């Protein structure tokens, strides 16, 4: 586990109070608590922060002993970008998003932003706090910053004062590049590079967004007023939630507002390009059936059997190609999803279904035709490489290039 970020955060907090601590030392403390004593990382952070605060006799950081006892400095206005879990803070910001509360214990949750950044807030039902309105400015005094799923969270409790700010202030969100995203709330300008099949019936859309600095997965859940993104289009996305799962980030656009933008972005990063030949098409390619149970989506056997949900007569058809891509030096296990299969083979899902229904060989006929259309062909595949497996985003037939031919002739040496 990597503690350097947490250590950095703690060290920054101490530094703000005019003291300095070696972040290596903090890291060692954290590591010891988590690895040797099995303490939860969030708890370890709190405990180390408190320990250091005590050591330097600091107030205003760490969790105070007594309830409601905001130390010195809580009345001092802070920038949202500079607040950290474990602090009591006062901020002024604009509510940019209101979410439906996930539990009755929560009265309201949403996102509040200032010019430096944005943070998710949660008002507990017990706090009896006045409801805030989307788009309005507020001064929030003595709220607690804690951490939820690795993301900083502003907790509004019974000791927190919320005061509306009447004047209308302009708010220009600070934009972040995708390559620099961290868990939390972020605004990005990005292009929709790929759309995936949804794996859950509550999911509206998922796929990949990219900018010049990298790519990130995104998801939009079904909710009133939410619209799908158009593939290939550029959007400015305000206040999306950046989640982390298994060390990978994803953008949840349910909290976000997005508007379509002019122009184009050259998306880079996280991408592999491989030129080679398709040397094998594996069984299970072509027209396949998927389990209709929400969140499952597994490929079914020919008898419509799902490994988890047993017989599923109401399956969903899909196209895919699994196979080996070989450049003469290395062989890659490749996986093409429906849209890539359709554009490479020229056979749409509907055409494949029709072919399977009207042919004595059924889905085997689809497999054979696709095999004959792509096997032994030179292609350029672009996508993400994970452990020798290439998740292909685009796959095109390679074309003859005169320049390459001439270069090779020169290289071979012009011997008559």
């Amino acid at each position, binding site marked *: 586990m990597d503690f350097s970020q947490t250590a950095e955060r703690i060290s920054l907090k101490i530094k703000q109070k005019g003291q300095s601590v070696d972040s290596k030392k903090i890291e060692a403390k954290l590591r010891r608590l988590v690895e040797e004593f099995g303490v939860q990382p969030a708890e370890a952070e709190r405990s180390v922060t408190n320990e250091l605060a005590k050591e330097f006799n600091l107030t205003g950081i760490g969790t105070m002993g007594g309830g409601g006892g905001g130390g010195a400095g809580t009345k001092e206005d802070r920038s949202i970008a500079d607040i950290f879990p474990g602090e009591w803070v006062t901020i002024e910001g604009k509510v940019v998003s209101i979410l439906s509360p996930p539990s009755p214990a929560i009265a309201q949750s949403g996102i509040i932003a200032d010019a430096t950044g944005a943070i998710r807030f949660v008002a507990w039902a017990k706090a009896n706090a006045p409801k805030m309105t989307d788009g309005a400015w507020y001064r929030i005094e003595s709220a607690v910053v804690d951490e939820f799923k690795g993301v900083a969270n502003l907790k509004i409790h019974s000791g927190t004062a919320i005061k509306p700010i009447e004047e209308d202030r302009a708010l220009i969100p600070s934009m972040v590049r995708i390559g620099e995203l961290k868990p939390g709330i972020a605004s990005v300008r990005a292009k929709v590079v790929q759309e995936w099949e949804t794996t859950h019936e509550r999911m509206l859309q998922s796929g990949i967004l990219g900018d010049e600095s990298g790519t990130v997965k995104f998801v939009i859940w079904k909710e009133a007023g939410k619209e799908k993104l158009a593939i290939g289009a550029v959007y400015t996305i305000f206040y999306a939630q950046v989640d982390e799962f298994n060390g990978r980030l994803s953008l949840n656009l349910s909290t976000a507002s997005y508007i379509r933008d002019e122009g184009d972005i050259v998306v880079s990063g996280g991408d592999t390009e491989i030129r080679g*030949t398709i*040397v*094998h098409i594996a069984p299970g390619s072509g027209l396949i059936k998927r389990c209709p149970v929400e969140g499952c989506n597994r490929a079914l056997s020919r008898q419509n059997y799902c490994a988890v949900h047993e017989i599923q007569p109401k399956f969903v058809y899909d196209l895919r190609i699994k196979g080996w891509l*070989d450049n*003469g030096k290395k062989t890659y296990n490749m996986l093409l999803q429906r849209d890539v299969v359709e554009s490479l083979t020229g056979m749409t899902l509907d055409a494949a279904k029709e072919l399977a229904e009207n042919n004595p060989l059924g889905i085997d006929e689809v497999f054979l035709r696709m095999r004959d259309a792509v096997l032994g062909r030179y292609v350029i595949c672009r996508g993400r490489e994970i452990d020798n497996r290439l998740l292909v985003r685009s796959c095109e037939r*390679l074309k003859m290039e005169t320049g*390459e031919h001439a270069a*090779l002739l020169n290289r071979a*040496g012009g011997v008559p």
Partner: protein
Amino acid sequence: MSNGGTPSLPKRDVGFEREPARRVFAAELRECRYQFREGDDEKSPTFVLLPTGERCNRVFLVGTLTEKQRQGDQNIFYRGRVVDPTGTFFVMAGSYQPEAMQQLAKIDTPAFVAVVGKPNIYQTPDGAYLVSVRIESITVVDRETRDLWVLDAARATLDRLDALAAGTAPDAARIKEHYPALDPAVFRKMAYESLAQVKI
């Protein structure tokens, strides 16, 4: 997985890695005389040593299928000849490769074909050597794929020759031992002539 053999041998890759299909012209494959296996395991791959200095367990070739022939009574198998700018590949598919055999049986000659297969060296009773490719898959392709292959095979041949000249070829020692009389310039010329035949 087998990373088998005696402990003194260097371990090949941990976990499964499919052997890549080498791009080789017919004139080079025809010259192969040495075949070896790394490790004693039943499943250890067999390699044919290419004269330009690379081991080869699998080949990818594109050329014109000019002839095919059904043979055998009990054990049916198909033989075919695939021609590239430098010569002829002998390909075959037997009842152990039913899918490849059906694919080959369906193709009308002549046709451009792409073949993935495993090379083997045979010695005839009169002492002559024959290198044949056991087909894993064979598909009909277009002329452009054939031309792309000629470029690809030429590039791979030149890469191997460069590595051999630089002394970085992984099987350089074996080349010296088993192909002492071969002149690398022959293969450079072969690559050049093949490229010259491609009309753009």
